């Protein structure tokens, strides 16, 4: 899909951290979901996730395109609302200091360029880490 439309379409979930909470099973879905991914329910409540959470699991990537600094940890973070966010750590953090259970702040950061556009992603910054 063209970069412009993809970035526009995905932004509520990606940058607004908007989710649709299933009123049947209580689990989180993409804000555009029509049926719950988990139970098939069709009733939702709009939820905005807090920009902070806890590392549930992570993997340290060593082989990436050269525009990225490696090693670079990628993690799933759970917010206090029970929503999960998949993302990279910011390049400001030491890659080997990440551990399961660490608390992080979710911040808007630059990710890549495509079609001459700057792409952003929510990234994780370790609390108590570098202020960048």
């Amino acid at each position, binding site marked *: 899909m063209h970069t412009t439309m993809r970035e526009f379409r995905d932004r509520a979930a990606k*940058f*607004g951290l908007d989710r649709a909470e299933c009123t049947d099973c209580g689990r989180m879905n993409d804000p555009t979901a029509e049926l719950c991914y988990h139970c098939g329910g069709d009733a939702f409540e709009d939820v905005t996730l807090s920009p902070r959470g806890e590392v549930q699991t992570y993997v340290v990537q060593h082989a990436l395109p050269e525009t990225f*600094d490696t090693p670079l940890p990628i993690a799933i973070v759970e917010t206090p609302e029970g929503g999960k966010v998949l993302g990279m750590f910011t390049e400001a953090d030491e890659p080997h200091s990440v551990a399961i259970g660490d608390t992080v702040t979710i*911040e*808007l950061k*630059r*990710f890549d360029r495509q079609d001459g556009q700057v792409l*952003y992603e929510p990234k994780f910054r370790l609390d108590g880490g570098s*202020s960048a």
Partner: protein
Amino acid sequence: MAHVTTRELVLPGYRVSTGTIRDQWGGGASGVQHKTVQAKDDDPTTLATRAGRAALDGRTDVDAVFFATTTPVYEYGSVTPFLADSLGLDDDTHVQTFGESARAGTAALRAAGNAVDGDSDTVLVVAAEAPSPAPRSDWEKVAGAGASAALVESDGEGLERVAAGTCARPLLDEWQAPDSDTLSTADDRFARNIGYVETSQQAIERALDAADWSAESLDALVATHPNGKFAGRLAGAVGVGDDVLATPAFGREYGNLRAASALGSLALADLTAGDRLVVAGYGVGTADALAYEVSEPPAAASVADESTDLDYVDYLDHVDQLE
């Protein structure tokens, strides 16, 4: 009447000493000892998001976002709607972008004050810079990164705007042509004195006149810090003591944050209820000065001390100048 109710400064956690840069290229000292440097995945938009989020502190009742930067991500195309959206604001928020010179920050602050005296109640002003100066240029020796923000409201406690002054002169003391990647600077003392010092001084004296205040009655002066020296000279020209110039070390410690400089200095200024304050911004022959009475000092921003010192090659990588 317009009030500034919050003030914020975000400095990226990296810096480079200007000695490190001079060791590469030589040249004289500008009074800047360190300049702040963006993370590799930061740009004016990401820094502005952090500062704006801190200034809003969860609020979304904002009528307008005014974004000031001289290092825009696009030659053509606005990131201000993206900034507003990233701050959780609805698409009925009026957005406006200010640029052209380092005065953009105070131009936005003045416009925000006018807006809340008119059709708006609350305006978020954010200024951010993430420069990528050409290696070996004069600009490389001073250009710093950071973001500052202020919330301007028609009601509330904080800094109450009393008067404004301006001075706009056709003096091109800095310029960069579209086909050039280097900032040119009229670095002779005459241009600098007529430019930064005299133009800022004119705007400040006009604001003082309009407020019916004397320079002696001023408790705090916040100014743009183009380097480590000029703000002190400006204070002298206005006739206020060293104790009145807020954050005298701002330029020395962080460098030239251009549009974010005056608002950043405001975020750190030591203010007391009852103070008379002037905030002055300068860029390329133009200056704005805003006179405020402090009804209650908005909480000052805290700048993290922890900062990683970069060597020259790492610094070039951070500012996207590594070939």
